[in-house]
């Protein structure tokens, strides 16, 4: 006997298993698998009241930042000498880059709910807007074949009191409370000064502090992009952050190389029986140093100015 089920969506995989939607003759079947067992939930086509799809706020900046960070990680394999480190950085970076690119290609995220008289089921497999469109295109005819089409009179008879009407325009924006952007751009300026000092005084301990502050730049930049909501219209400031993250890629390659060489110096010193390990010395080429100082000053000034001005004009 042929199987009556037709696949509606792909598998939504988790660590413990996956879930998937199938269309039967008179119901939708939700399969939740733990690999060793499958649990089934059926939603009769005649009982489905509504399907709602809510597009989640865009995370384009975060996705681009993740791709940039993954690219930086991968390219840092060129800056190290150890073959094992090269392989590790290249392999893990490639995986992260592939994930970021696939995430970008799959499009915007959404949340899809299936409403019945007794339940409101979140369809985890319908997590992307494109998937939701395809899902609706396949399921809607089947449900309408079972129930017919709802009329305007029937909708009016539902008669639910609603407090918050919808609009075809986005809502008014509210000013954010944090100053993450301002702190980040100030940090750029501070790091520019630190890099200049470490180049002028190579035997000082300033280069050690740079390890922390550059890492803080990356973390703050990613946090700022993640915390950006769809209603924050400080586009110039966020664009500067994205560009800055790409510039950190270029700096990071040299920095990672310097760190790896420092580790190899420590290992060599230990072999020779040295009691005091060598300190971290950052000695970049002049062109690299000027580039690192230059882009930080530019990003700091432009970003700080735009963040302050955009906040005052209410775009924040």
């Amino acid at each position: 006997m042929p199987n009556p089920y037709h696949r509606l969506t792909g598998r939504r995989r988790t660590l413990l298993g996956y879930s998937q939607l199938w269309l039967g003759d008179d119901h939708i079947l939700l399969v939740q698998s733990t690999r060793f067992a499958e649990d089934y939930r059926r939603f009769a086509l005649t009982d489905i009241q509504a399907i709602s799809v809510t597009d989640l706020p865009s995370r384009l900046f975060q996705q681009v930042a993740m791709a940039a960070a993954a690219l930086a990680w991968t390219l840092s394999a060129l800056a190290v000498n150890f073959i094992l480190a090269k392989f590790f950085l290249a392999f893990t970076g490639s995986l992260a880059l592939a994930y970021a690119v696939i995430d970008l290609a799959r499009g915007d995220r959404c949340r899809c709910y299936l409403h019945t008289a007794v339940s409101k089921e979140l369809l985890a497999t319908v997590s992307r807007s494109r998937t939701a469109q395809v899902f609706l295109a396949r399921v809607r005819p089947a449900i309408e074949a079972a129930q017919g089409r709802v009329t305007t009179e029937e909708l009016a008879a539902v008669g639910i009191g609603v407090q918050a009407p919808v609009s075809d325009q986005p809502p008014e924006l509210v000013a954010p409370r944090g100053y993450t952007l301002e702190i980040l751009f100030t940090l750029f300026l501070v790091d520019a000064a630190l890099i200049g000092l470490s180049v002028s005084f190579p035997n000082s301990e300033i280069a050690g502090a740079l390890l922390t502050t550059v890492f803080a730049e990356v973390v703050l930049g990613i946090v700022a992009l993640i915390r950006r909501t769809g209603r924050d219209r400080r586009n110039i400031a966020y664009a500067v952050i994205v560009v800055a993250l790409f510039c950190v890629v270029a700096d990071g390659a040299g920095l990672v190389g310097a760190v790896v060489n420092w580790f190899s110096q420590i290992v060599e010193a230990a072999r020779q029986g040295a009691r005091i390990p060598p300190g971290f010395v950052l000695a970049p080429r002049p062109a690299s140093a000027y580039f690192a100082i230059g882009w930080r000053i530019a990003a700091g000034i432009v970003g700080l100015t735009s963040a302050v001005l955009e906040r005052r004009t209410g775009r924040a």
Partner: protein
Amino acid sequence: MANVSTGGVICCGECSSPIPPEYWNQEANLHCLTCGCRVMVVAFPAIARKPAGMFPDAIELESEASCFYHPQSRATVPCEECGRFLCRLCDLEIDGEHLCPQCFQSGVRTRKLTKLETRRTMYDTIALALAAWPALLIWPAVLTAPASLFIVFRRWRAPGSLVPRTRIRFYLAGLFALAEIAFATFTIWTISQLSGRSGGR
């Protein structure tokens, strides 16, 4: 997220603000005023349907048959499994078959009512996992390979998934298990041969 009855209210999936019925079944996506997310609601006639409760009729004449579970209610149909008379409240119709609550429960428990099955064990995945994963550590496969083979033969005819699924996992599990058993046998035989030769010297 807990599954709760909607009560006919459709809410935004991000901020849970209700979406009024006049904005359902619109071609263009609308924005929720509370959170600004685009929302699309596709509604069907079931949302306007009032929930139908089937109250049983009371017995009016002594000659009328009463329900087995509700002696004061009039029986409308017998159970097609056990023959008990059922009122409208107790009648459970599954695929045109009328069942009493007890037969319904036992049908689900014994898996006679396949349309109501909520869980199935994937023995093919279990057999493949037993054959494949322990082999990474080499020696546990000596114990798990026979177990995998046992499951393959014992559960070959067990009902698989409700949705389309091939038997490739069973085939692979049997193949891996046989290969591991053969490898283990060959290893033991080789060791015994080598021990015999070195002992003979």
